[in-house]
């Protein structure tokens, strides 16, 4: 048992040292939250680090709901069995009421159906993109316990359709990554293209790690489309686009945010990407996004460029804000219900850092509501726990990427509504 005490003491010491502005609020109690993230995978570790970073900031602000926060982190190994078991252990053995995770939809889903919903624990994922969650929620099977900060593929696909319409393309082919994200993306964008009157000539799946994509690209070329839509990751995106261009395909391309990478630009060549336009969800035009960037750079000595980092930060921050709003010893359902008080469009805006959390505490203590301006935007959930976000249209430039057009959240929502 002494080992537990030693590790607790060392955590307490570390927290004590990091407590700056919140020293006056210092308490002796500790509330645990759970995190199930794929830390054994290279891109999973930074996501976990960023979540811990948010927890540290909150602890520096004096903790949430009257207690310091300890994040208990478990690895999923991207294996559903392992992830579900870890989640169950966190809920039953550590008594967490809030669970962050997982990344893969195929892991988040069984956790949701077999652990968090039956146990009444709030689950908040940074990165699960599958539309299956929306479906489950619409059937009323999530009990309002599910949230995610990954703006649904709906925003991306709607803005992609807007680009095609604005450019006046009449026909388009789609290449998509053959996973849950890519399949969702292809289905949604095909519907959105149809809604704005652009004909889809072909929709072709691209599997990872093939030596070449000639068959797939030839298939996509056969309808002689005016433009090409790419929902791919940089590695196979590069290979597919090279093949596409060498076979005489058009340079009119629309890219999903997954291709917003220097690797893709350099390997394809900037001279071929002059007519390529990308879409992305955008950071808000607010100081809080800059505050997050600055704080992140100070802590990790790097830009927060990586899949899911900003989403992971917002997921942790929102979960803790909701805990604060729900008060001490709240149940998972209480915390989930309190989410609307911290993402209220009419609420007091708060920034994504320690100072913002301190400010939020005061407003919430007075019975008010706040609007969290996070690293991914003015986060706002719909009734299914899905998040919408402002969008941006970008293109490649000498130095990286540059913004062509910024579309505020209200315009995004209006455009999505017009498609239906």
């Amino acid at each position, binding site marked *: 048992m002494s080992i537990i005490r030693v590790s607790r003491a060392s955590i307490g010491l570390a927290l004590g040292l990091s407590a700056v502005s919140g020293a006056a609020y210092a308490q002796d109690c500790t509330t645990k939250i759970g995190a199930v993230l794929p830390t054994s995978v290279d891109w999973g570790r930074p996501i976990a680090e960023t979540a811990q970073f948010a927890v540290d900031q909150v602890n520096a602000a004096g903790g949430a709901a009257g207690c310091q926060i300890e994040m208990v982190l478990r*690895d999923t190994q991207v294996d559903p069995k392992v992830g579900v078991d870890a989640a169950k*252990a966190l809920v039953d053995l550590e008594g967490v009421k809030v669970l962050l995770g997982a990344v893969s939809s195929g892991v988040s889903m069984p956790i949701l159906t077999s652990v968090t919903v039956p146990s009444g624990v709030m689950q908040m994922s940074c990165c699960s993109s599958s539309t299956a969650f929306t479906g489950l929620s619409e059937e009323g099977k999530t009990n309002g316990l599910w949230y995610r900060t990954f703006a649904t593929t709906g925003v991306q696909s709607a803005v992609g359709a807007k680009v095609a319409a604005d450019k006046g393309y009449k026909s388009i082919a789609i290449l998509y990554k053959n996973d849950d994200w890519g399949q969702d993306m292809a289905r949604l964008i095909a519907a959105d293209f149809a809604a704005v009157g652009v004909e889809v000539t072909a929709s072709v799946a691209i599997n990872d790690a093939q030596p070449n994509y000639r068959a797939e690209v030839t298939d996509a070329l056969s309808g002689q489309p005016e433009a090409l839509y790419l929902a791919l990751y940089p590695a196979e995106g590069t290979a597919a686009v090279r093949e596409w261009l060498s076979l005489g395909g058009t340079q009119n391309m629309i890219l999903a945010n997954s291709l917003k990478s220097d690797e893709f630009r350099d390997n394809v060549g900037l001279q071929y990407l002059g007519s390529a336009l990308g879409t992305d969800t955008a950071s808000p035009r607010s100081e809080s996004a800059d505050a997050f960037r600055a704080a992140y750079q100070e802590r990790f000595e790097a830009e927060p460029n990586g899949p899911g980092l900003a989403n992971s930060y917002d997921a942790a921050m929102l979960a803790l804000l909701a805990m604060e709003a729900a008060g001490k010893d709240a149940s998972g359902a209480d915390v989930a219900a309190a989410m609307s008080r911290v993402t209220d469009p009419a609420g007091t805006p708060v920034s994504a850092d320690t100072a913002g959390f301190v400010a939020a505490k005061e407003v919430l203590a007075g019975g008010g509501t706040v609007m969290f301006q996070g690293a991914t935007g003015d986060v706002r959930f719909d009734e299914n726990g899905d998040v919408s976000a402002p969008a941006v249209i970008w293109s490649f430039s000498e130095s990286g990427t540059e913004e062509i057009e910024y579309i505020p959240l209200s315009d995004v929502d209006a455009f999505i509504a017009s498609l239906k």
Partner: protein
Amino acid sequence: MIGVISYLVFFATTASILAIAVLGLNLQWGNTGLFNGGVVAFFGAGAYATLILGGAAQAGHLGGYGIFYPLALLGGMVAAGLMAWIVGLLTLRLRHDYLAIATFGVAVAFENLMRNAEWLAGGAKGVRGFERPLRTALGDGFIYNLVFFVVVLLILILTYLFLQRLVVSPFGRLLRAIREDEEAAQSLGKNPARIRLIAFITGSVILGLAGGLYGTFYAFVSPQDVLPTLTFQIWAMLIVGGAGNNRGAIFGAFLIWGAWTASGWALSRFAPVEVQLYTGSVQFILIGSVIVGMLMWRPQGFLPERLVVSHKGKTKRKQHGEY
């Protein structure tokens, strides 16, 4: 305290489901010597078929038949058996490593089919939202998990008893005869090809049963559940527990799954804060070392096969290697 019990019930349920799968593999490998490298395909066939047959209606793919649960589970077993029959006809003439490669290929093909055929099983999104049987009567909490565990445990015991009975029967002796020397068995007028196929199908049906229970328990199955990792895990359980011994198979399942989960828990609990982020990788190293150590120092497993030559009224035990 209730938390600990609740977790242990949950853990034991997963371990029992895996133990059923290991028993199925044990019939194929331990008793008959069939190297099934595609365990996950039959496990997955059971899981998918059970969920598609018994699940609630879902847009975009097959399913929503809402069949009475035991029948859906039976359907999962039939699906696994049918697949084993087809695969078996095609591949069972192959020996050892060739059979392993062929069945591994079947498993990869199965995963890719499930990932791509959206009309069939939802593609990469998986089959979701399966209504757990008796949910309305038992609620969602601890009682449900407890009842579910008891049911799984009963199925595990029944499977074990069935296989124990099978192994000591003349048919069981025939399986071992084929495993040790096929030509000798043939010279006694037996038909090894047919017997191998029967053993392969029976083992696969048991794998399908485990898959069906797995899908029911998680109320979800996706291509991520049928990755080759699961084949590896089930094999590791059988090898560590003791191939050829049904008790060893069950013991191995509990031991390996216990080590797998306990190491994750212990690392998250006791490892220093700065190591926390690396616990996932540390866990892989630990588990790998245990399996390597096991293969080096006790390759026959914790509970090795006991060869029993049965005569009426007199039972003589022989050590491994003496036959």
